[in-house]
């Protein structure tokens, strides 16, 4: 059974005060996420990621289309007991302590009293907030609130998790931890659906990704499949003052500045170029990936349709 089925969800807003005109936030979207997957929902800011998540959570009603989670309709309470949601930049009742908040959410999710106590301290430990019991949330930093957000999402041990920009507001260590958590959830058989605009996170974690831009789905599939048709680029810098003809044929672009030469080549030509430089006994200063293959794919997908179709030579 599919964990999430999005069947043509559409959202149009009316904008303007006097003369209302429709603005399309999400064009009919069809997606299917299998159980046990980590699914990345990628797109730049304002692409329609949060709108989609809000519709899945029943916060915003779609203009058309429908969706099912775990085979149930969106407003089915039985289904809602089995999902967890972390909103973007979450904010909570700031007069509560983290433990009180989780206790309250546990009650709302129908976790029974004994189980609740155990789970609250367990998830607080898990997200790295073991010693904040007496502190009201109004004193929490942004990163700590994000951790509380993760904690409340996994509190009731849900089968499907929805994370909206889970890494935002976190320091590198925090991001590492959230990644680990997601992998752990996957190992435990959970489904994770998360939105992000940070591609490295998606590339490292996701089984499959969807790319959305301007409310339109631009591509979906396993990372390896999507990137098979595109190649990343690498910038190589070495000491020297001329660009060898053999390098010129390999490089997409090259330039000489003082006594350093830089050239941009496709990932596939990277080894050939380095071999050439070695043969010439040139001193290599650096080899830097400019774009990973997913990023390259992403950039292509974000271009207007005709550009992606190859009109540009």
């Amino acid at each position: 059974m599919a964990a999430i089925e999005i069947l043509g969800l559409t959202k149009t807003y009316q904008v303007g005060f006097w003369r209302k005109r429709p603005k399309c936030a999400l064009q009919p979207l069809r997606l299917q996420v299998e159980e046990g997957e980590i699914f990345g929902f990628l797109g730049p800011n304002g692409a329609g990621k949060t709108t989609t998540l809000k519709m899945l959570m029943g916060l915003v009603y779609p203009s058309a289309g429908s969706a099912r989670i775990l085979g149930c309709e969106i407003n089915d309470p039985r289904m809602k007991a089995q999902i967890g949601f972390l909103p973007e930049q979450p904010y909570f009742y700031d007069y509560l302590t983290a433990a009180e908040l989780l206790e309250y959410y546990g009650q709302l999710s129908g976790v029974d009293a004994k189980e609740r106590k155990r789970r609250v301290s367990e998830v607080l430990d898990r997200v790295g907030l073991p010693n904040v019991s007496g502190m009201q949330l109004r004193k929490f930093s942004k990163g700590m609130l994000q951790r509380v957000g993760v904690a409340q999402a996994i509190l009731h041990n849900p089968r499907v998790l929805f994370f909206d920009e889970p890494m935002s507001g976190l320091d590198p260590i925090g991001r590492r931890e959230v990644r680990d958590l997601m992998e752990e959830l996957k190992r435990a058989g959970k489904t994770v659906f998360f939105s992000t605009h940070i591609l490295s996170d998606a590339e490292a974690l996701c089984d499959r990704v969807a790319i959305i831009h301007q409310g339109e789905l631009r591509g979906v599939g396993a990372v390896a499949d999507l990137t098979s048709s595109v190649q990343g680029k690498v910038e190589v810098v070495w000491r020297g003052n001329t660009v060898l003809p053999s390098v010129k044929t390999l490089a997409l672009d090259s330039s000489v500045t003082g006594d350093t030469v830089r050239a941009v080549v496709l990932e596939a030509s990277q080894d050939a170029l380095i071999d050439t430089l070695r043969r010439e006994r040139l001193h290599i200063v650096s080899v830097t990936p400019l774009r990973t293959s997913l990023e390259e794919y992403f950039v292509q997908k974000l271009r207007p349709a005709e550009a992606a179709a190859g009109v540009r030579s």
Partner: protein
Amino acid sequence: MKPSSKITQVAGTFLVLCMLTSVLLLRQVDRMRGGATLQEVLYISSPGALKRLSLGYDGLMADIYWTRAVQYFGSKHFAGSQHYDLLAPLLEITTALDPHLIVAYEFGANFLAPKPPNGAGMPQRAIELSEFGIRNNPSEWRLYYDLGFIYYMELKDYKNAADAFARGSRVPNAHPFLGVMAAQMAQHSGELQMAQMIWSTTYQSTQDRDVRANAATHLRALQVEEDVTHLGNLVAEYHARTGRLPDTFSDLQNVGLLHEVPTDPFGHTYKLTSDGRVEVRTPDDFPFLTKGTPPGYVAPPPRFLPSD
């Protein structure tokens, strides 16, 4: 994925039900509370204190108290009450809050001064109210008229009435009637004409529904009294000429005393009794009649007819 239609239907139905029930309950509460509501409005009975409490919104408060006064008198009057204890304080508070509310003084002159059941029977307080109005609005001829009206109608005090009408006649743009009235009061002649003149002036110049209805009732009564007196004189003359009483009004026509058989203001013919008295057929329609009613007739409490 849409707003739950079940909840919409349940909440919508419940909303309508609650709305209807609340109106019904409110009507029940109204019935139970009865007159209590108006008794309560005067827990603060000092006009000065109320003015201060109204925080500068005295205009609005005056309107509210004016409504209360009218409602109070109207509901009591409809119930045929003999007591209008709150009318004076309500009008005093109203005019203290807004001294320029002319209609309130007029209402006081018409309904505070007359004896119950047609009014509160407090001519002295009505006079004070009018004088207060004149002090605050010296150029309103209506207020002098109201004052003269009270002196004449309720107290038969011709001197003060003439004085009030004379003061009023000196106000710019005063109704010409005031000067005439002042002169007539001085001689106090022609009672019927004077009363007719006064009531028709009130009828023509007032803006207030109740005051106009009251004036119309009075005018009709005066008309009937005039007719009854006239017809009575003709009957007496017929008796003098023929030595017997007429059986019908056509007997009067036959001897040339009467051209046309008169009708009362509601179009009914008058009744000629076997003992030669002239009576109105529906005395209940003419609350203020002093003649033309059957012997021993007791008038019901006067009511204005809404058609006026």
